[in-house]
């Protein structure tokens, strides 16, 4: 990977790694009595590892200008591999956690392995590790192809990808040590949060710089979504993570907001992490891989505009539906509920736009499991957004909130939409990246598809059932008008569903493992294509420093 870097970039990489090593050393030294010290060591190790790779690769010749005529795909390959690695890891933890709710003794007498520490490992590992890497990798691919421009340099994509994974590692190694801010989906502590801001700024700059080099006059829809994902996540992340560390050599910090204001900020963040991480980014993915794989034009350009701006505007108001009937003032709840209802329209417009794009290609959906992944994902996207808007209605939420119904909704979205669209995109992308005619085995893609679909259905139906049973038992009244069931009675009723969910999760996880094997075999053994980049439009060569917008 270093061979592709220019001399200047190699030196810059060394300087950055050196600075990071210094930061790691300082944290490790001053924080040696605090868990932050361990993170200092991890940062130090990562930086030294990077320096080692850069130095040992520096003896290779500096690339000539011919590489400027090709897209820069090396970081994308690594990103895809990392995404799959995180997927298997985080789903395995998710399944472990699922079994724990059925058989709580299936763990160790050790703090790191408690449910409350493993659960954020699952959510962070899957959303940020799997989802984030998939988004970064595909965005690098999509932004280059739809701009017909190579990324402006070779270093910043590596910085973004590897720096981002360092953030994920700091997060996921923090929980077992007890480092957490407890804010759902924003658990990492202040220093990891700051690091993510740095990585994110470079990511945004890279995206804008690539767009600036584009040879197409218009920016394609997929890029609107990726851009919204990057920009809005930055805003959300910064505001929700404002915190006061107790000392610079300590991992511990206190968020600056408290009580009701903190709750609103947290769920403004939490809901829009769903919106702009788990939705907008993946819609960007869908907008590229679905039409290219099916070979069909997007159903309606105008519908894309409506849904994009509808999603961007309405989503940001909906966070208060996580706080219905709480100490949050009623007026905010009304706004959250009504905007969630309006949000359904652009959401379904997106799902519809995707499904209708397949008109004229349904025979391909039948034959090609990769395209079927994307089709089913769009269906689940429609389903989970409908469910979400439904659950945002206050009386419905009074039943669903706090129960497994929320978990069912989450995983209808997460497994059915996020994971399936990602697998579809990866299966479309891998042969392109490794210049193969296709995946090593399309039968294995088929197997993965059915395992994933079965796992999703088992999971979601189990949790719908348990959520409803739970919610109803909590508010069932006996003939004399008093509560009929105690809490523990509802807990006992959950047991069979928890087992079913864990089995469903195991199916889904096995599918992902099959996917990993298939990708590995494709990269190593599948027959290659004769022409280089046969599927891509030829790249217009720009002088490497050129920054003129490509109009």
């Amino acid at each position, binding site marked *: 990977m270093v061979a592709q870097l220019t001399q200047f970039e190699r030196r810059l990489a060394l300087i950055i790694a050196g600075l990071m090593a210094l930061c790691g050393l300082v944290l490790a030294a001053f924080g040696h009595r605090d868990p932050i010290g361990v993170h200092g060591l991890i940062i130090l190790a990562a930086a030294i590892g990077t320096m080692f790779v850069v130095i040992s690769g520096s003896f290779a010749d500096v690339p000539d200008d011919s590489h400027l005529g090709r897209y820069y795909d090396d970081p994308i390959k690594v990103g895809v591999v990392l995404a799959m690695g995180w997927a298997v890891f985080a789903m395995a933890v998710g399944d472990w956690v699922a079994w724990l709710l059925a058989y709580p003794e299936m763990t160790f007498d050790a703090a790191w392995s408690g449910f409350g520490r493993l659960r954020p490992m699952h959510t962070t590992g899957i959303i940020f590790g799997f989802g984030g890497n998939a988004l970064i990798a595909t965005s690098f691919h999509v932004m280059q*192809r*739809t701009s*017909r421009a190579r990324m402006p340099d070779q270093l910043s994509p590596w910085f973004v990808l590897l720096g981002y994974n360092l953030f994920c590692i700091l997060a996921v190694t923090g929980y077992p040590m007890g480092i957490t801010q407890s804010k759902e989906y924003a658990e990492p502590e202040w220093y990891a949060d700051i690091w993510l801001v740095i990585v994110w700024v470079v990511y945004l700059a890279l995206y804008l710089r690539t767009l600036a080099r584009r040879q*197409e*006059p*218009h920016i*394609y*829809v997929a890029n609107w979504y990726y851009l919204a994902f990057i920009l809005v996540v930055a805003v959300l992340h910064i505001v929700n993570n404002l915190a006061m560390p107790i000392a610079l050599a300590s991992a511990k910090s206190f968020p600056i907001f408290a009580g009701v204001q903190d709750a609103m900020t947290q769920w403004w963040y939490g809901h829009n992490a769903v919106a702009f991480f788990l939705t907008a980014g993946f819609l960007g993915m869908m907008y*590229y891989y679905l*039409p*290219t794989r099916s*070979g*069909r*034009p*997007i*159903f*309606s*350009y*105008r*519908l*894309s505009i*409506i849904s994009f701006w*509808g999603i961007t505007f309405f989503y940001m108001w909906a966070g208060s539906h996580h706080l219905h*009937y709480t100490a949050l*003032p*009623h*007026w905010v*709840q*009304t*706004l959250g*509920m*009504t*905007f969630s*209802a*309006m949000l*359904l*329209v652009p959401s*379904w*417009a997106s799902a*519809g736009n995707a499904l209708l794009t397949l*008109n*004229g290609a349904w025979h391909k959906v039948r034959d090609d499991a990769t395209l079927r992944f994307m089709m089913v994902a769009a269906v689940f996207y429609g389903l989970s957004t409908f469910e979400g808007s439904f659950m945002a209605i206050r009386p419905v939420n009074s039943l669903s909130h706090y129960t497994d119904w929320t978990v069912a909704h989450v995983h209808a979205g997460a497994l059915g939409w996020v994971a399936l669209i990602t697998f579809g995109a990866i299966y479309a992308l891998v042969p392109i990246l490794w210049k193969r005619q296709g995946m090593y085995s399309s039968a294995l893609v088929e197997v993965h598809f059915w395992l994933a679909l079965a796992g999703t259905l088992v999971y979601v139906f189990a949790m719908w059932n348990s959520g409803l049973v739970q919610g109803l038992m909590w508010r069932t009244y*006996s*003939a*004399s*008008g*008093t*509560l*009929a*069931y*105690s*809490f*523990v*009675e509802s807990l006992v009723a959950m047991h069979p569903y928890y087992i079913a969910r864990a089995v469903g999760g195991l199916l889904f996880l096995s599918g992902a493992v099959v996917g990993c094997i298939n990708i590995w075999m494709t990269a190593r053994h599948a027959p290659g294509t004769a022409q280089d980049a046969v*599927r*891509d*439009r030829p790249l217009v060569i720009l002088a490497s420093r050129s920054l003129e917008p490509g109009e």
Partner: protein
Amino acid sequence: MAIRERDPHTGHMTIGHEWNGITELNRPVPTPVWWFLGAAALFSVVFWVLMPAWPLGDTYTRGLLGVDQRTTVVQKLAEAEQQQAGWRRRIAAADFAEIEADEALMRVVRGAGSALFGDNCSACHGAAGRGGPGYPSLVDDAWLWGGAPESIAETLRVGVNAPHPDTRVSEMPAFGHDQILDREAILQVAAYVRSLAEPVSAAASHSQAVAAGKEIFAANCAACHGDNGQGNSDAGAPNLSDSFWLYGGDPQTVFRTIFYGRKGHMPAWEHRLAELERKILALYIRDLRSWPEGARR
């Protein structure tokens, strides 16, 4: 690459751009989308007019209906109480014996008591009220503080060793730890205590110790547990001559009890449960005893 083409499948024109093979159809937004958007917006506007909705600096629009979640729930609770007024009044007014004799009221007690007991008491006393080490069974015949419904209700109100001004107070002294008795004496009195519950087996094996223990018991323990260990429900001192054990009747546990002492803690429920709820619970507990094994849900 601005070439507008006609898509052969749908017959629509593309917008004339192409990104690495992707094109888009320049088709109008399907009208149902506008209808639904309009309907959702209309629904929202109506809602905003009726309900509290928009912030205005240091206040917010209250909505024409004047609804607020807090007044709503208070109203719902009052309505519920109203609906239950019939049996509530009767249970509040009647004394325990009357209620226990009234099958209709006892059905209410069982219905209401089940969740109340499950959510508040079963954590300590077990789902079936059978207790566990340190937590008395409520379905046996041994009562620390008396088994009359009035005594039970009073225990519920004030608790035992609880932070309530009228709490019942009880403590089994730590005879060993506080060096009142030596090890030998404790072993002897423990043997005696065990012999009270199981006269045959204990007397046979340790007759010597039992005899010595009896002396020690009379000097140190009888003040609370009574001359024959029959207990004293004013002091919460358990009967030691029956077959029920609070902490356990095996030699080690009895030794520990005497050596380190005991001080059970039962929370006071006066400020957590209403008087009527406590009355229902007292009745429910007494009723539990008559339920066949495993009859509780």
